[in-house]
Each structure stands twice: as C-alpha cells, then as structure tokens.
C-alpha cells in the first residue's frame, strides 16, 4: 500500500529529505523478525509489516506535524527508539515508522535530582550523565542500551536496582506527549509552568492514560520528552574501569559491595526477600547470572572474566572441582549490591545484611568474594552495560513462566518449574541444556520491594529453524502449566495478545473476543473509550488492549 505522493512530500517538508526514506534498503530494515528475537512468536521467517516510509523527526514540533499528517491521510504510525522489542514496530501495511534516533538530549537538574530526556537517550548515557552529579537512574532489566523514555512511557520498566531506584512508572515526572490525534499534552507542572518536577494532576492525573503498568507500548501517540527522578549514587563521578577489552571491572568502589547470597531453600529465599525489603539495605538486588542456567552459570562468569576462554570451555569448567562446588553452593542465589552513603551507613547495611543471612540460614558465595569477580559483578549490575549477555549464549532467548509477583507464591513452585524445563532440555534439542532453572529474578518489581519478577531464560539459536520451533513448543507447554497452576499468562506469551503470529494487528472483533469476558471487563472497555477519545482514527496498532463496550457495539 504505497503512500500517496502528497503525503510523502508533506512528510519530507516536515523533516527534510535526508530524514525520510521509502527505499527498501531502509524500510526493510525496520521489520522485526519476531521469531528470532525475544518476541519469539510466529513462524521463524515472519517479519512485522514493512513500513511505507521511515521518518526521523528531530523535534516535538516535527513529531506533531507528522502525527497530524497521519491523521489527515489516515496512515498508521509508530515511534520507537532502540527497536529492542517487537512492540516498537508497526502492525499494518498502511503505516509509517518513526525512528526517534535524532532526539537524544539529556539535561540533569542535580539539585532537584531529575533528568529531562529525549527518546534516544538510553539508560547507559542517562546514567553516566547522572553519575557526574552523584546520581543514578533506574535502568530497566532489558539493559542500559534501551531508551529511558521508552521504558518510562512505553513498557514495564523495572530492573535490578528498582528496589532502591524505583521502577519506570514511579520515576516518571513531567512528560511531553504528542497524542495520537496530533494534540500535544504536557503533564503536571510542565503543562502550566514549563517545569518538569511533577507529572501528576492537576486533579486526577491525565498521565493515567499514558502509563499504566505496562506503559502504552507506543500506542498512545509519541512521547517526545520526559523528566525522570534520579536517585542518589554514592560513588565517583564515573566508575573507574580496569581490565582490558572486553573484560572490564569496576575499580576502587570501596563503599559499594557486591555479594551473592546462597539460600538454603526456596522458603528461605522468600523470607529473605521480605527481610531485605524491610531492612532497606539493598542498593540493588537481582538474580542475575542464573539466567545462564543452574548448571553452567559459574562457568559463564569464568568465561566472561577470562577473555581467553570461550563457550567451548564450558564443559571443562563445569567439571572443574572448585567451580562445581561453588556452583552447587549457589543453586538458589541472588546478587546483591550494598552502597554506603557514609561509613556508618555501610556498616549498618553490612550488619543488617549479615543478620538477615543468619536469620534465614543463608551465606555469601565464596566465589563472588574474589576481587575480580566481585568487581566484574559490580560493574555489570550497576551499569547493566552487558545485558546483551542475555543473548550471548545462543544468540536469542525468550523469557517464560513469569510465575507470581508474590514471592511467597512463586518460590515454592520454582523446583517444579525448573524440573519441567530440565525435562524438555533432556528430551529435545532446540533449547540450550543449562540445568533447568534459568530464572532471572527481579528481587523488586516495585520501589522499595514488595513484588518480584520471574523469568526463565529459554536460550535458543535464532539462526536455527528447529531451535526456534522447539523453544516455541516448550513455551507452549510452560504456558499450559502456568494456566493449570492459576498463575496467569506465561511471560513468553504476552506477545500473543497484541499482534498476530504474522506480525499484523488484531482486529477489534478479535480483541473483543479476547477481552470482553475477563474478570473485570471495565479494564478493556474503558480503554476502548479512551482510545476513541484520544485516538479516534485508530492509528497506532493493536498493542492497546480494548473491548467494545456492550452499549457501543455496532458504533464506531
């Protein structure tokens, strides 16, 4: 469905000739090969639809003009920044893609602990600017190469440090948003006074419609600039790095400690979380390295900290007596970072941490107390610069299970889930055989603690057709298990609710069938009404979940 020349010319007038393209070399590059990525959905060669043009806006004004043109010409659009996830891509043949790469500014207000960021400011750059001012930011679990704005406006956005730095939604202050109809709304203080420090109100918060639990996945127009809360960082203005490429380790962070807790049982794990929440000792808490798999996680850390080693060394490392013992010791583990804002503070946190370990019968992993390993871990967790390690093992992964946000519900189920995965690893070849449990667990899915995240990493080879299909089948099985246990949707099947396996949008009728019979249908029917009010031409795809209210059936 080619664009009309008038529309294309109008877009060109807005952004300039060098910032728009309909050349297939460009447009084909903005298709997500969902089956090969963490969307892991659909046939292995299926891509999201090809945009009719790719546009690179350079300012909010340009975005507004583009969106208005889309409304005039009834062309769908979607904006994305780092294109990390399938949700950033369009779902229709009659659509254009906005790539926000040109908008990447970061301004830090150190005193008031906030940063004003544009879409292509990624966690890694926002954090480095924040650290110059004794501050840091929440970086979502996806890693520091993801857009801070997209995480804050578009998706869930919790990460390893969220216990201390809160999650994306909690940190979102003022926001500038081009609505799907082309109007611009600036939330909170920004709308009235041009100040960024509060995104709520006036009165009931309009931001309610832009950023719920998941964010709006790019369906509520284009967020062009936001302010986020920054959080205290007691370390240097830049974390000194030692080591040679690609092994980098934090150097000299004396008031920051990284530990790995070895829990004696899953019950102790849950109780440990509760105590960690209450004692407010953690700067960061995350079950990180287990994502590689229970059997090989220590071997992987060895490889990452010894650049001469590669994956072919895994079998030997797994059998190394010392590593084997250490790996077994941390069967149920969590990585923790403590940061002292004073000597007394660090002393308190260390003692409180030790008291918690004693109370639950846990201990610190000896392996992770080695200086280089601790310093590698610190840098890894504090900067989340290597979240691409998620993919390194097999080139692709998809998270599955999800379990329950309540650690006291999820922890007792862990071994059953792990056994299910391990059995699959043994009976099929499409999923990497890493020891069953490959859970990467966010200790806190909410600021200060209280909810947890669970995500088993299903490592598969995105190049290997059989691996793609086999891992998909595995997730089908775990999804059925999740349903049987009453745990809700499997993490690995969220995408099935938002676009077809062929990458295209759902129709309203399909969404009605999916959402009109949920426990509280108002969730979907009010979103239908909100869409009608703010996105009357339905130009942003089907990631926005709606159900037609009974009283509106038959009406547009």
């Amino acid at each position, binding site marked *: 469905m080619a664009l009309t020349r008038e529309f294309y010319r109008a877009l060109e007038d807005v952004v300039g000739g060098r910032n728009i393209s309909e050349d297939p070399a460009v447009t084909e590059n903005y298709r997500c090969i969902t089956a090969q990525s963490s969307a892991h959905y659909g046939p292995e060669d299926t891509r999201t639809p090809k945009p009719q043009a790719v546009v690179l806006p350079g300012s909010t004004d340009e975005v507004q003009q583009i969106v208005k043109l889309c409304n005039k010409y009834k062309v769908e659009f979607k904006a994305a920044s780092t294109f990390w996830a399938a949700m950033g891509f369009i779902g229709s043949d009659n659509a254009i893609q906005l790539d926000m790469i040109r908008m990447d500014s970061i301004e830090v207000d150190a005193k008031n602990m906030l940063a004003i960021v544009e879409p292509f400011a990624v966690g890694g750059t926002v954090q480095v600017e924040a650290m110059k001012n004794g501050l840091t930011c929440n970086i979502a679990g996806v890693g520091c190469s993801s857009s801070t704005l997209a995480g804050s406006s578009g998706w869930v956005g919790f990460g390893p440090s969220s216990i201390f730095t809160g999650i994306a939604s909690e940190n979102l202050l003022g926001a500038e948003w081009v609505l799907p109809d082309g109007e611009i709304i600036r939330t909170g203080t920004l709308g009235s006074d041009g*100040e960024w*420090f509060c995104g709520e109100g006036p*009165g009931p918060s309009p931001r309610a*419609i832009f950023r719920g639990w998941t964010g709006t996945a790019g369906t509520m127009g284009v967020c062009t600039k936001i302010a986020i809360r920054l959080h205290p960082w007691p370390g240097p203005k830049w974390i000194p790095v030692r080591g040679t490429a690609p092994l980098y380790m934090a150097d000299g962070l004396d008031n920051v400690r990284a530990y790995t807790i070895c829990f004696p049982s899953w019950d102790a794990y849950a109780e440990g979380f509760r105590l960690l929440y209450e004692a407010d000792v953690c700067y960061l808490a995350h079950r990180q390295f287990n994502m590689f798999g229970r059997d090989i996680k220590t071997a992987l850390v060895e490889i990452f900290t010894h650049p001469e080693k590669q994956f072919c060394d895994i079998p030997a490392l797994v059998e190394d007596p010392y590593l084997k013992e250490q790996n077994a010791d941390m069967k149920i583990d969590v990585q923790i970072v403590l940061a002292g*804002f004073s000597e007394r503070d660090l002393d308190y946190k260390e003692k409180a941490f030790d008291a918690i370990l004693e109370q639950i019968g846990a201990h610190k992993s000896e392996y992770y107390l080695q200086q280089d390993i601790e310093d590698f871990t610190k840098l890894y967790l504090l900067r989340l610069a290597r979240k691409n390690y998620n993919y390194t093992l097999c080139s692709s992964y998809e998270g599955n299970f999800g379990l329950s946000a309540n650690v006291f519900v999820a922890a007792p189920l862990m071994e059953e889930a792990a056994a299910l995965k391990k059995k699959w690893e043994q009976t099929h070849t499409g999923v990497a055989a890493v020891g069953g449990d490959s859970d990467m667990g966010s200790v806190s899915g909410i600021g200060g603690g209280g909810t947890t995240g669970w995500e088993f990493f299903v490592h598969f080879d995105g190049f290997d057709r059989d691996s793609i299909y086999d891992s998909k089948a595995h997730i089908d099985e775990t999804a059925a298990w999740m349903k049987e246990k009453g745990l809700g949707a499997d993490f690995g099947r969220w995408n099935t609710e938002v676009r077809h396996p062929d990458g295209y949008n759902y129709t309203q009728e399909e969404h009605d069938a999916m959402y009109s019979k949920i426990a*509280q249908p108002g969730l979907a029917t009010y979103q239908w*009404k909100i869409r009608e009010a703010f996105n009357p031409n339905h130009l942003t795809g089907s990631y926005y979940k709606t159900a037609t209210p009974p009283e509106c059936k038959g009406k547009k």
Partner: protein
Amino acid sequence: MATKDSLKTILGNANVIDNPDVLASYAVSHSFDKNFKPWYVVKPKDAETVEKLVAFANETKTPLVPVSSTGVKLRGDSVPGVPEAVVVDLSGMDKILNVNRQQRMVVIEPGVTYDRLSAELAKQNMVIAGSLKPKKGQSVLTDIVEAVPRLNPMIQWNFFDPLRCAEVTWGDGTRMSTGEAAGGPLDLKTQWGKQQWQVQYMGPWMTDYFRLVTQAQGSMGIVTWASLKTAVKPLIHQLYVAEADDLADLEGFVYKAMWTRFPDEIFILNNMQLASLMGKTQAEIESLKEVLPPWIVAASAAGRELIPEVRFEARSKDLIDIAQASGLDLKEGLSNLSGRALYQEATSTDGDVYWKDLYAGSHQNVFFLTQLDKTGVFLRAVREIAEDFGYPTEDIGVYIQPKHQGSSYHMEFTFPYDPDSAKQTARVQDLTESVSVAVADLGGYYSRPYGKWAGIQLNKDAQSLMALKRLQKIFDPNDVMNPGKLAI
C-alpha cells in the same frame, strides 16, 4: 419525593437523611466558595449499595458528593457545589478489611480513621505514614487518595504512596478495582485465597486507573476500599530539630538529607506553624511563637526490628553530621521544644478544635507544589502581599514537606483569622485570593486544585483541561460526581 423513595429503596430508610440540621451540617466548611445544602445525606454500608446509588444518580442526573471524614471540613471539596445534591457519607464504611504483616499491607474502607488504623496496625508492629496532625475524624483513605503529604516522604517511591489498589465505582456506575486487584474478581476474599494482597498499584494494563481517582475530590467515582502499604514500626525513634533564622539556611541540609535517604520523617515549619502545632490555647501559641526560632527543620532517625540500635545510631549521627556540615545544629530538642514532643504532636490526631483554628478561631490555607530551591521566592511574595493587605506576617504559618522522596515539595501557608470578625474574614478572603493568583504566577503548582485553584490552574493548561474533559466524559458521562468542583 421520588428521589427519597428511590434512595430508601437502595439504602434502607435509616440510611437516608433529610433532617435540615443534619443537611446543614454537611454544608459547612472553611472554604469561601459557594456551598449548597444537600437534599439528602445517605449512608451506604457496602460497595454494592454504592454501585446501585451511582446507577440511580445516572438515571436521574442526581449530583453525588462523597464524604468520608467527619468533623470540620477544611477544604470545601466535600460540600455540594451544586443544588439538589446527595451527600454520600461513607464514614460508616469503616472496616479494616485485612492486615497482612508478611506483605505489610492493609486494606481499609473509607471511614477508617488514623487512630483506629494505627491501633490495629500497632498490634502487628506496623505503622502507616501519616500526614501532619490530621483531624480526629479524618478518613485515612481520603487523606491518602487526595495526596495529602506524608511526613515521611522516603516511603514514597510513587507520588501517591502509600496508596496501592482501590475499588472504585466510577461515575458511570461501573464498579471495578484498580492495579493488581483488577486482574482478579471483585471479591477480595477470593483474591486473598490466592495470596493476592493488592500490592501492585499500576494498571494492571496500560491505564493507571487509580490515578483517575487521586486528587479528584470525588469527581470521578467513589472509592469503597483501598489497600495501603505500611511500614515496620520503629522500636527506637528520635525526631531531631535544628533551628535557623532564614528558610534558605535549611536548604542545604534538606537536600543532602533527602539525597542520603537517612531520615524517616522530615519537614520544615516556621515558628507560627510550629507554635500552632504545639500550643493548646491561643495564649500558648502566642507566647510560643515569640520564643521559637523563625524556622526549624525536623528530621528523624529510627531503628526497626533488625539491629535497631545500629541503624538508629548510624542514622542519628549521620544526620547530625550532615546538619553540621550545612551549618545547622541538629539536636534532640531546642530549649523550648522537644523533638519527641513535636513528633507526638505531628503524628497524633487533633482534639475537638482543629489545631490551626486554635489561634484565631479559623484559618485559610494556600498550598501548592514547588521545588525546595524555589520556596524562598514564594515566601517573599506571600509576605509582601500580606503586608499589602495589612495582614500580620508573623501570623502566617508555613509548612514545607518533601514529597515523593523529594522530587517535589508541598508548601503550605496558613493564615489564621477570627471568623467572627467580618473585616478579618473579608481581608483574609481577599488576601488568600491574591496569594493564590500570585503563587500560580510564580509557578506554584496546584496539583490538588481545590476551590478557585482549579480555575487558576486549569486556565494555565488548556491541554490538561481538554484531557480531563475527555476523561470525565468517559468515567462520569452524566456529570453526577461532585459537579462544580474541578472546573472541568
């Protein structure tokens, strides 16, 4: 009469009141805004009744005004702003539905007051972060849903913490819950049976439904329960105070203390506000005001269940060191002010007379959000305006409260006046109107836009007004929820 009969059918005879004296009592508030006597006061006992009531209101276009607190009405938001209204008094829905120590969660109905809740929580060594000396009949739920600032901003990762989930009957009559609770059935017992404790407040999908009832003055729907996050009660606690001649002298300490997150409670008061809080009579306040320092900052250290002494000592010493580095002497008390006594007053509920009314009989408040480094600008402007009006600037109370871990600051000016004096009343009315406009002109943000502030605030932000109008049309299409209050 048809209305009364219908209401009786829905609520039962005893819960529909049209006694003129009672109705009149619901029309009295501190607000200078035009008030209307309600036609009826109804007292639902459960959410199902509320749901039916809202459905009826939609059918008959009857304005509903939810009220949860008892006692003096300070802001006027719960007094009808239009004729023919029905006040929905929820103070009788006062059950504490669930207390969960493991999750530190509590679920309460609208009529639960601080005293009751605190007593119940204390049994399990928990505490709810409170606001500055709420009135005795203050609904905890309303206080929190209306985002009244908490003395302890550190627990606020989210702007609205400790609010988590809620059950709302929207203005169109649909009852649903928000956040995590919306993922299951409305029945809480079923959710608890699955160990779902209404912890996670967002969404649960793309819309933050709970944000539509916050700061809404009952204009979007009626909340029939809310889940709140509590804290572990301190075993050792000390509120420290430091004095200063100028507000600006406190800035460095507060910024640094907020950065470290060492304090639990932290707030700033001027001598008048402090005297009002501590004094029990007009005379006591008058004399206290003279001897108290112009400004104090209060910051607390606490130790909880886990190695309480170590935490308490570390926090105490560090706060004192930070203060010292900022040129302040942070102590357990001043010669005429004990930190413990201040904590006691700040965290207890009020007596028979609201504490801000003790000095002159009544008061007016102007409060808004700003940033700490801008508070001095507002202080100067307000004093200048007060002088222009001949209002004694030394009588102006000031309270500054960090919110949301310090991302914004609640600044509150209190102007006591004698309500029996027509001149004083007129003067303070004119004064606060001028101050309200000036504050807005200087960038003060009425996030909670009561009375005239709604017009002032929304006139500055056409797009937010447009968005709110669209939202109101969705959630309260017949404009039955507390009409006339938000200027939408």
